[in-house]
């Protein structure tokens, strides 16, 4: 492991069902607190208070999309270096390369297997930017 233990995570997605699935799936990780947010704007207002170790962002959201949230995070004073994982159906190799160029630590493809989501998140957390 090349990082400290993952303790807090914020998941941002406009789809309430997916937020619930992620909450259930990541609830299996010991000692991890999972917060969720329904929009990019809302997430940006939460981040200074929650101070999450990791942010998982849906890409296609009405209003502010995932890449815009990431760029706002990077430009902000609070948590400018917080790692971000995109969770998206747009997971072709060229799309993944684009998200990495934006500064994402990794990409998790939708649809995901809820039973495997925790492993994928921890894998990226421990080895960010692995192909």
């Amino acid at each position, binding site marked *: 492991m090349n990082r400290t233990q993952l303790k807090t995570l914020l998941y941002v997605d406009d789809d309430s*069902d*997916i937020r619930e*699935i992620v909450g*259930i799936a990541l609830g*299996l990780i010991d000692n991890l607190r999972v917060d969720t947010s329904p929009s990019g704007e809302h997430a940006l207002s939460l981040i200074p208070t929650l101070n999450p170790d990791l942010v998982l962002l849906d890409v296609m959201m009405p209003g502010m999309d995932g890449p815009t949230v990431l760029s706002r995070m990077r430009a902000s004073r609070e948590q400018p270096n917080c790692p971000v994982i995109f969770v998206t*159906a747009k997971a072709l190799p060229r799309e993944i390369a684009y998200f990495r160029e934006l500064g994402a630590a990794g990409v998790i493809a*939708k*649809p995901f297997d*809820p039973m495997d989501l925790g492993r994928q998140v921890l894998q990226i957390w421990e080895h960010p930017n692995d192909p």
Partner: protein
Amino acid sequence: MREQMKLLAGKFLKRCSGDLVTLRALVTPMGNNVKVFDAGVFKELEHLAHRICGTGASLGFESLSTCAAAIERLAEGQAGAVAVDKEVVRLLMECVVALEHEVDRLIHASV
């Protein structure tokens, strides 16, 4: 976790029933009057179908997800169009009907 996912799957199928009413309401007017074209309708169809497709697949409803993906692709293909394509509307309605059958089947199977 499996029990929680089962409960969530039930809630999702119920919500799908509501979404299908919206999908049908979006597609039907285009079939009735091909002169009316609204790009926003296709955007909304794409968004709804995308959500059903992704959530359905994560909950293990592969066939439902496939039906929704077909709607998403058809709607996405209309980006930039300036007039309603009758054939696309016909295919969309077929997909909506197929999705309705699939949701009904899954709801009955879960009872």
